[in-house]
């Protein structure tokens, strides 16, 4: 019976600010709809009841960049799409994160040609790369949990 138990009985919990903020950020991280190719099908599957991403507070895929925290770039990005992608990224409010889902978004994949950007990291900074062609929903969820781990490790200095 320490002091924590006594304060908890009174409805008071002590924690660090970093932990509280990061908990809030990771447990309601709304992704933006950015399905560009076949990876989007797996992203939808990850949303649906079998895999159910809402377990991690991600049930809301926002169609507006202004309401989203995370951009899952699912599929190959063509040269003509790249300025659109960057613009949507710039419209997202900070803090914001990017997952490059699949080989095409990460490296260009099999499309080493004039029309496709060789990795979305040429356009926006990427936090987590998910390999696979396309990655299974488990892989995407693993990528998201990896991102959560990264966000939980962020400190006050990174928030500025």
């Amino acid at each position, binding site marked *: 019976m320490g002091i924590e138990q006594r304060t908890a009985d009174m409805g008071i919990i002590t924690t660090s600010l970093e932990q509280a903020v990061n908990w809030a950020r990771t447990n309601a991280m709304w992704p933006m709809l950015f399905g560009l190719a076949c990876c989007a099908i797996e992203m939808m599957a990850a949303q649906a009841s079998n895999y159910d991403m809402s377990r991690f507070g991600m049930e809301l895929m926002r169609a507006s960049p202004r309401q989203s925290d995370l951009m899952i770039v699912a599929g190959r990005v063509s*040269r*003509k799409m790249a300025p659109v992608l*960057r613009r949507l990224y710039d419209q997202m409010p900070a803090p914001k994160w990017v997952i490059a889902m699949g080989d095409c978004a990460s*490296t*260009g994949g099999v499309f*080493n*040609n*004039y*029309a496709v950007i*060789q*990795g979305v*990291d*040429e*356009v*926006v*900074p990427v936090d987590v790369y998910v390999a696979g062609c396309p990655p299974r929903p488990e892989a995407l969820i693993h990528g998201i949990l990896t991102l959560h781990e990264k966000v939980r490790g962020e400190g006050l200095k990174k928030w500025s």
Partner: protein
Amino acid sequence: MDENLQPVVAALADRFGASHAEFRGQTTVFLRPDQIVQACQLLRDEFGFNMLSELTAVDYWPQQEPRFHVFYQLNSLSQHQRLGLRVPIPGIKPSVESIEKVFPNANWHEREIWDMFGIRVEGHSDLRRILMPFDWEGHPLRKDFPLGYEEVQFTFNVHEIDQDKFYPKE
């Protein structure tokens, strides 16, 4: 050749001196670049080829000269007939007459052959790029256009290529 097509091919040979070829039951007539508008007009008005179902180009560089073939596929809905027209075009300042006045749907197809092959379409009402960005240089479906723009990374050259790679800031 289908017997219904024979008078059509004969008329084209008579009027334009055009030769024809057959491949797997498909008939293709070869025409000169200055003849294509009149030929389309003739086929549409007198032989009932009232639909342009395809307009594209092929680059035969470096095997063949002339290097480009512009290809027109006409369709007769009333007689259920198809006829291909081919216009060979040399590679230096390639250009072809627009058939937009005869078949209005040629507009976008002709923009595409300008965009992808760099074949100028004379008399086109709105000759801009259609697929590539407007500031794009070159014509990507030409056979001499470079295939990829980034070397594939392997373990022995990954750092070398990574040095030249562009990484954006926040």
